[in-house]
């Protein structure tokens, strides 16, 4: 078992073995206390996966980082200012899980209506810190954060289109959207993409990221 600082440093250097170890530790921790926090047990695995990938991305893109000066762990807050992380990474993961859980419950309650699509994105992405991060790294951090904040539906469509390379017809089929046409999906995909690009560009402007 390693300390949070060691984990952060090694995950940021893409150490696969340590990342895997961190994953198992987080999983054990999460499953150990999950039942105390949440009512629904059937979505436990999904919640964990979503939360862990967020945490992992934040560490990898240096939104959570170890300050070289004082050796403490910091995270950029919603105003882009670094704030010392006063909890452990495990506890932080639970925070993500709680948010994800609420999203699940809301979506479930709304019976498939993805009202969260219109949710305001959190603007806690970057600040005028880290002179050692270049523009490319900044851009990646912002885009990764925006992707994480996408609605699950939008993320699913975009992932299937850009990552899996699926055609719109196949996406339609795989999602089981019987009430949606190909053009409807195309329009949804376009809107999702525009929304995502809008968020990204806005943050680029706010934080004066060269682009």
């Amino acid at each position, binding site marked *: 078992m390693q300390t949070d600082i060691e984990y952060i440093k090694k995950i940021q250097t893409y150490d696969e073995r340590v990342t895997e170890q961190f994953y198992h530790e987080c999983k054990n921790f999460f499953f150990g206390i999950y039942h105390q926090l949440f009512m629904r047990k059937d979505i436990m695995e999904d919640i964990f996966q979503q939360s862990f990938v967020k945490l992992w991305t934040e560490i990898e893109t240096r939104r959570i980082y170890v300050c070289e000066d004082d050796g403490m762990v910091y995270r950029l807050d919603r105003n882009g200012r670094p704030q010392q992380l006063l909890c452990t990474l495990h506890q932080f993961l639970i925070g993500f899980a709680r948010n994800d859980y609420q999203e699940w419950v809301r979506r479930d309650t709304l019976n498939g209506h993805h009202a969260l699509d219109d949710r305001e994105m959190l603007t806690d992405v970057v600040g005028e810190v880290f002179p050692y991060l270049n523009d490319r790294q900044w851009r990646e951090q912002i885009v990764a954060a925006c992707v994480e904040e996408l609605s699950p539906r939008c993320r699913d469509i975009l992932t299937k289109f850009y990552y899996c390379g699926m055609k719109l017809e196949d996406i339609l089929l795989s999602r089981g959207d019987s009430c949606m046409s190909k053009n409807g999906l195309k329009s949804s995909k376009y809107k999702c*993409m525009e929304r995502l690009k809008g968020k990204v560009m806005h943050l680029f402007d706010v934080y004066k990221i060269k682009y």
Partner: protein
Amino acid sequence: MKTADKIDRYLRNEMTDKEQQQFEQQAMNDVALRREVELVYVIKRALTARQEKLKRMREWSRKIRNTFLRYGVAASVAAVAVGALVSYMHSGAEGSIADNAVTVAGVRTNGVDVVVRDPHADGVTARGAHTVDDGADSAGDSEKVHSSAVERKLVALHSGASNVEHRYMSVVDYERDWKQILSLLHKDNYAELIPLLEAYVQISGKHQSAADSLLQRCQGRANATLRR
């Protein structure tokens, strides 16, 4: 065709070579288009990175599940084996007979001979027993020794102090008896120790020579005590 569609086709490698060349040429001259392509490319990379992470997490989960499964199977097999052994020992101690012939492999390789002497001497019947006499070793059948449950365990048959027979089917039994000998030695209980040792020295195994010398020492001590 819309610009967004063109960008998608370009990034998904769906354009022909000619189309691709034209598009790249267009992007070279159009800063806005180039920025747009770069932005979609960065988004695509972020989506890819996210999916790769999820993929690796699934692999790790699978790996740990397989490890648990492997250990679980091994533990189950071991538990069944121990259970079977205990069951055999229990049934043998009661003198029960299992008619089912079983294959005993590896008895010899463990360095302990299977010794079954006249089973009728003490009233225990060992049907279908494979008898190994001092000189008569059925080498041909050594790999597969058909034996009943009675044979599969060590039975220390005490039929009088001088007529002790041991049937060893495993190193576990052999070692167990050796421990018993040491325990009796520690307690200076020569009355029980000597008969046991007398039987034990007849078994070829790793403690045979030690048992031999121990027997001589014990007999010497026992005689000295008697003289006193």
